[in-house]
């Protein structure tokens, strides 16, 4: 069987399917002796992946073997655990693996540490409790165990803050290693424990990053290891490399930097190709901090550019990319494009082409100052040429962003209109030239870009006949290699080309109207109608103006009026899908639990149970009419956008104005040599005897121009923050960029909302509404007279202890009994004066009297602390006799609360939370959020869940808005950020930190309230309370 299993493994390796043996591998591991086990485990770890269902069968065997006394069995079990165990099986073996950390044999300890590291990688939170044990492993007497624990620390220290105190230990370890304190066994080529050193250096560099005091601890040892590592062997270079990186990562120290720089020199100049590679890598890393270093090695870098090794070349270009500035960008980009032309590795192309595009877009109007006045348009041509190269080389491998960015650059332009037009003009010209040539090999995305530009800006070029443009584009349409997507682009370009030429267009539309592709057919139809109907053409420019002058309003506020009208007419307010979902869930919850049971009493004042629209009756009639109107409206607006927005530039209907720009016919080839020469002149050429080197020298000087002392500032500036990109007009440029960012932001907000759900949960859980307290506060006169009730009291306190334990302890502080003996009940309003000193200053709600009888009176008050809600219960003795003991039993009547106290299941709690939200037991959980108007604006855009509603406006005083907001502020602990005219903005947040922003606008007699929050249920909740507060007012 063993032999067969080995052969099965061999078959699998060769790529044949041997899945029928999987089960036998498991059997072998389960039943065999040690030898069979070994083969079985090996086969299992090779065959099965983490998600494989057969793994379940293995858990018991592994558990058994972990407990075995046979060393080898334990080893095998640990290996297989580290290899294939998935997340959900970790808890089963975790305690056993943990035990192995204190196993007498060091090989077991070591494997256990690595297995735990693997667990940490898969499920960090499951091994959180054993961090202390990692620490023990670090100080293990066996260096091997210590070495493997470094793996864990390397991972942990990626968030270094909590491990700064370990710096000392790491430095000591490294010192000991360097001092040869380890057993000779650990030497490799007479270097003491090199891999250990590498790990330690990495850890140190992570620790010392941007932290001066920590860095100071390690200067000495770094210096030491720089000095020690002088022997001429690969592994010492590995250490040196790490050392250099560490020196440049931590807080800089001049002396060390100098030494490290010398080391880099050794690397770069080394004849060994591997070292050269590492040297280049180190340089790439270092130039971000110190650009002059590249200057020292410029000749080597030039040689590397022509190196036969692909990897070296690539690395060199990477380095050049880092040192690019406005003056050398042309040469560097040229080099990169050369490389790309000779390269056929897809991955590399994608990687590099993106960088070229980035560079080109970074310096679109790239021009050294001295040429600025003479030949400005030449540099536009450079940009266009480069982008042409990018598109034709990168082709369809390009990320979608690149062409989009390019087009945006063209469309939005810069500050100077003249420059823009020249750029566009040149683009049009160069594309016409390209199209006149052989086009069948061009990538689709390049064709798309060309057709867009021609459609948009062909009118700028007067000298070219429009018929010619149309002819070229039509030619493209006829080509078989052109994809249908590109055809659509071309057609829309044709639509944009303005007047005349009806005959050509009609021909075209005719031929396409029988196309198989429906989209094409539709466009052809539109095209025909457009060209025939002159009235429509007249109409277009006007529409364009409005489209361009209006800003993109992501909140669709222009529909607000319509929406409020519709609401006023009785339509149901829009609910986002997630809310609808939630409501469905609620419905389900309601089926399980009688609604009235969990309702707070006060809700009965609202006549309508729908929390969405308590003030508005939802009438389904009239809804259909509204929606039809809506769709009509939407339809008309999209029509305008479709036909017009992309078709015309903002000056599209005034072609004669731009056409005054002179045609530019500069040969682009002249550009680069000129810049090179000029650049070379700027840097003083070194005396160089060999003429062969002349070229290289020149190249070098053009490459490293701007890296010298004079302009190092600009480079440094670059490394900190990229130089101002092509400046954009302060016009909204949402079109392509916003989609990305907004997606990201919504992404993050959805993530954060999940987070807040958790914390929200904890935050909300222990809250108690006084209204419930009334019914739940069970005051029994019997207990006042009974003696020896201290036992009772104890149990009560126990329960509280339990509660807060279960709840994580940090959220609720229930002060169970503040006993004020002999206090007359009449002065309950002054009860707050009796609060302990540390609570006196907190904002508090009114003291509510809960219940009273002849002997005792109870009242309660809520205190708002930043991180918690305190519920203070005052107990006053109304009689003249002394009460010895009071038993307070706090029964939580709320059914769910009781349940969750008993079994704290996440699921139930979730259900519970939702119910609580709905029933507003949470009423006291939020705090004012103090922000400025600007912060508010930023925050507003980043929040995703919103709710709109019209509320009643308080009209009893002079300024209704202000009055209303103040009333809300007082009732609900809100912060009024600003009031501008008829609009006011208000903010609050949850205890857990989730903000909720409110935007209020006076709309006739109503207050249009618009709430946003990262938390899906929070706006509804706040809104509900606003309604309540205003209704009570």
């Amino acid at each position: 069987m063993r032999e067969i299993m080995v052969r099965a493994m061999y078959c699998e390796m060769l790529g044949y399917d041997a899945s029928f043996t999987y089960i036998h591998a498991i059997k072998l591991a389960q039943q065999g002796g040690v030898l069979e086990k070994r083969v079985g485990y090996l086969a299992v770890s090779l065959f099965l992946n983490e998600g494989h269902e057969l793994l379940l069968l293995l858990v018991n065997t592994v558990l058994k073997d972990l407990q075995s006394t046979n060393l080898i069995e334990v080893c095998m079990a640990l290996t297989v655990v580290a290899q294939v165990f998935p997340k959900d099986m970790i808890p089963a073996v975790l305690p056993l693996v943990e035990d192995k950390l204190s196993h007498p044999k060091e090989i077991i300890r070591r494997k256990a540490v690595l297995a735990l590291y693997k667990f940490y990688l898969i499920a960090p939170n499951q091994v959180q409790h054993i961090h202390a044990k990692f620490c023990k492993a670090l100080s293990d007497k066996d260096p091997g165990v210590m070495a493997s624990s470094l793996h864990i620390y390397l991972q942990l220290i990626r968030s270094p803050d909590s491990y700064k105190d370990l710096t000392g230990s790491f430095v000591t370890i490294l010192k000991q290693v360097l001092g040869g304190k380890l057993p000779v066994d650990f030497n490799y080529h007479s270097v003491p424990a090199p891999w250990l050193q590498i790990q330690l250096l990495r850890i140190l560099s992570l620790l010392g990053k941007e932290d001066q005091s920590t860095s100071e601890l390690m200067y000495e040892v770094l210096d030491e290891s720089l000095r020690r590592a002088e022997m001429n062997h690969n592994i010492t270079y590995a250490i040196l490399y790490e050392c250099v990186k560490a020196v440049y990562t931590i807080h800089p120290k001049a002396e060390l930097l100098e030494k490290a720089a010398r080391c880099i020199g050794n690397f770069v100049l080394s004849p060994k190709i591997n070292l050269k590679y590492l040297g280049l890598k180190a340089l790439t890393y270092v130039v971000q901090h110190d650009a002059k270093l590249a200057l020292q090695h410029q000749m080597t870098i030039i040689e590397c550019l022509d190196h036969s090794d692909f990897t070296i070349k690539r690395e060199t270009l990477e380095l050049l990319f880092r040192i690019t500035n406005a003056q050398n960008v042309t040469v560097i980009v040229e080099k990169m494009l050369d490389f790309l032309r000779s390269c056929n590795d897809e991955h590399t192309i994608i990687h590099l082409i993106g960088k070229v595009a980035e560079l080109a877009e970074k310096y679109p109007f790239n021009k050294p100052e001295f040429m600025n006045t003479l030949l400005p348009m030449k540099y536009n041509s450079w940009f266009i040429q480069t982008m042409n190269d990018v598109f034709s080389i990168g082709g369809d491998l390009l990320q979608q962003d690149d062409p989009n960015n390019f087009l945006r650059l063209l469309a939005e332009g810069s500050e100077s209109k003249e420059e823009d037009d020249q750029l566009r003009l040149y683009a049009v010209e160069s594309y016409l030239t390209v199209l006149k040539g052989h086009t069948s090999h061009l990538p689709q995305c390049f064709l798309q870009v060309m057709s867009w530009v021609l459609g948009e800006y062909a009118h700028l070029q007067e000298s070219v006949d429009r018929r010619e443009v149309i002819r070229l584009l039509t030619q493209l349409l006829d080509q078989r290699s052109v994809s249908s997507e590109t055809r659509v682009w071309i057609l829309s370009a044709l639509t944009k080309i303005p007047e005349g030429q009806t005959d050509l267009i009609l021909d075209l539309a005719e031929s396409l109207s029988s196309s198989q592709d429906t989209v094409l057919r539709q466009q052809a139809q539109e095209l025909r109608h457009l060209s025939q109907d002159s009235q429509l053409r007249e109409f277009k420019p006007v529409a364009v103006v409005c489209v361009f002058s209006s800003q993109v309003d992501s909140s669709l506020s222009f529909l607000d009026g319509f929406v409020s009208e519709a609401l006023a007419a009785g339509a149901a307010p829009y609910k986002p899908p997630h809310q609808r979902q939630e409501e469905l869930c609620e419905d389900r919850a309601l089926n399980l639990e009688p609604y009235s049971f969990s309702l707070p009493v006060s809700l009965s004042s609202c006549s309508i149970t729908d929390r969405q629209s308590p003030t508005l009756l939802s009438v389904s009639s009239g809804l259909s009419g509204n929606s039809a109107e809506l769709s009509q409206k939407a339809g008309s607006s999209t029509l305008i956008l479709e036909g017009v927005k992309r078709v015309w530039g903002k000056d599209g209907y005034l072609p004669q104005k731009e056409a005054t720009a002179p045609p530019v016919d500069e040969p682009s080839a002249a550009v680069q040599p000129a810049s090179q020469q000029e650049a070379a002149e700027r840097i003083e050429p070194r005396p160089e005897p060999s003429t062969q080197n002349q070229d290289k020298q020149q190249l070098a000087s053009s490459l490293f121009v701007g890296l010298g002392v004079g302009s190092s500032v600009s480079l440094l500036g670059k490394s900190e923050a990229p130089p101002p990109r092509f400046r954009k007009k302060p016009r909204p440029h949402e079109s392509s960029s916003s989609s990305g960012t907004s997606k990201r932001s919504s992404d993050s907000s959805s993530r954060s909302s999940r987070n807040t759900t958790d914390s929200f949960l904890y935050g909300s859980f222990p809250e108690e509404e006084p209204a419930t307290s009334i019914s739940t506060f069970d005051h029994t006169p019997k207990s006042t007279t009974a003696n020896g009730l201290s036992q009772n009291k104890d149990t009560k306190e126990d329960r509280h202890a339990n509660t807060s334990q279960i709840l994580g302890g940090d959220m609720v502080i229930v002060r169970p009994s503040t006993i004020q003996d002999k206090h007359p009940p009449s002065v309950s309003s002054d009860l707050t004066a009796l609060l302990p000193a540390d609570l006196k200053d907190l904002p508090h709600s009114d003291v509510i009297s809960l219940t009273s009888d002849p002997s005792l009176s109870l009242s309660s008050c809520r205190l708002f602390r930043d991180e918690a809600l305190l519920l203070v219960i005052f107990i006053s003795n109304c009689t003249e006799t002394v009460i010895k003991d009071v038993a307070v039993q706090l029964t939580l009547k709320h059914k769910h609360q009781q349940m969750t106290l008993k079994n704290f299941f996440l699921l139930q709690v979730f259900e519970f939370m939702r119910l609580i939200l709905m029933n507003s037991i949470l009423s006291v959980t939020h705090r004012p959020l103090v922000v400025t108007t600007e912060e508010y604006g930023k925050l507003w855009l980043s929040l995703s869940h919103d709710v709109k509603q019209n509320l009643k406006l308080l009209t009893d005083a002079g300024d209704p808005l202000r009055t209303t907001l103040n009333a809300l502020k007082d009732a609900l602990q809100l912060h009024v950020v600003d009031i501008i005219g008829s609009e006011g903005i208000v903010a609050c947040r949850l205890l857990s930190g989730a903000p909720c922003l409110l935007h209020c606008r006076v709309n006739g007699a109503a207050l249009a309230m618009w709430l946003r929050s990262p938390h899906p249920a929070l706006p509804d909740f706040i809104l509900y309370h606003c309604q309540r507060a205003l209704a009570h007012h």
Partner: protein
Amino acid sequence: MIKAILIFNNHGKPRLIRFYQYFAEDMQQQIIRETFHLVSKRDDNVCNFLEGGSLIGGSDYKLIYRHYATLYFVFCVDSSESELGILDLIQVFVETLDKCFENVCELDLIFHMDKVHYILQEVVMGGMVLETNMNEIVAQVELQNRMEKSEVNQVI
């Protein structure tokens, strides 16, 4: 972390593969083919590092390889490993094989695949470097071999 260890001969026939990150069967074969394609066309006098390649992990991964006579030893690692360190680790691994098999050759890898795996298990465990000390590795393997022998004797 080491993502995969591949050993194949000059013709691209796999001799040992070990993945520390899950890939589907056909994907594994594709990775082997691509890696072989990348590695085999490189001269012996160029550097031992290769970046890029689209299959494993994208840009955060490197191929570090050594070429011995008829075999390529390729380690796919991510950026958290030291290049030269891994290069020497390959050397250690090969030297260990040499010691265990006494003049190791391609045939040993074919006929004693399981043993090679056991040795590898002592060097790399679950993608992490476990042991870099050759003597220690050999000692562990010896221990297991002894056990094997004793068990065989018992049977006889």
